[in-house]
């Protein structure tokens, strides 16, 4: 955690460029390749996760508070775990009898 940041916001610029690249790669893979549907979903899903983590760490500085770093991290990863259970669980349960 820096009290006096230097003149150029390097992490932010890098994070922004990386986010743009990830967005356009996902777009290209989804719309301009002939991979199988399953492969495309896995690729663009992974790219989305990478971009979300980038935002959490490079823009939101999730791990910068020395005092609350562990609480913050456990809280967010638990929420992500719940989100995965909710979405994957619902899709799985509702896939029966289709």
């Amino acid at each position, binding site marked *: 955690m820096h009290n006096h940041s230097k003149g150029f916001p390097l992490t932010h610029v890098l994070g922004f460029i990386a986010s743009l690249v990830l967005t356009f790669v996902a777009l290209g893979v989804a719309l301009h390749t002939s991979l199988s549907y399953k492969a495309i979903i896995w690729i663009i899903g992974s790219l*989305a996760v990478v971009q979300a983590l980038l*935002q959490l760490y490079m823009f939101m500085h999730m791990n910068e508070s020395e005092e*609350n770093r562990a609480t913050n991290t456990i809280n*967010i990863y638990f929420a992500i775990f*719940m989100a995965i259970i909710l979405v994957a669980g619902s899709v799985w349960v509702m896939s029966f009898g289709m």
Partner: protein
Amino acid sequence: MSANVNTSLPLEYQTEQSRLNILGFWIFLGAEIVLFATLFATYSVLKARYAGGPTPNDLFEIKGILTETILLLTSSFTCGLAIFEMRRNNRNGLVAWMIVTLLLGAGFVFMEITEFINYVHEGATMQTSAFLSSFFVLLGTHGLHVSMGIGWATMIIIQLIRRGLTPTTARKTFIIGLYWHFLDVVWIFIFTFVYLARMVG
């Protein structure tokens, strides 16, 4: 509650109260992740129930969706720059970047409302099918968050102009910054799973 003041930390972390408020906001964001997960789950289950109505192929147009994505992504970046300026104790830089952020956010909301109006004109309303109900609820909840964020941040900007950078206004600004970045995180998943994944092939 100004005990345990640590002036070696950035302004927004200096008081115990501020550190607890920021931690509390992260816990709120955890709950928001779960809220959006329920809406994503609903959409994922109902996404192919068209009831004879329009399908993603009939509705989605990549140009507008990509513009919305870039607007929100850039606003997340400028919001990061605003916090960066705050840490350099540059209030005017902070206010300027916050205003840019809100203009981009307003552009996003405008684009999204236009998109919804177009859908309704094409006969795709919330009542048309389960797919569209879940679509409008998920996107609408996100759009409402962005709209409320614009109102909230406007009030913070007014406080910054009237009171200057203090440990309290810095903490409030930092928290709206976290909220704004979070909305971009949610949008990444909307862009990927609601739009892109439905436009494959």
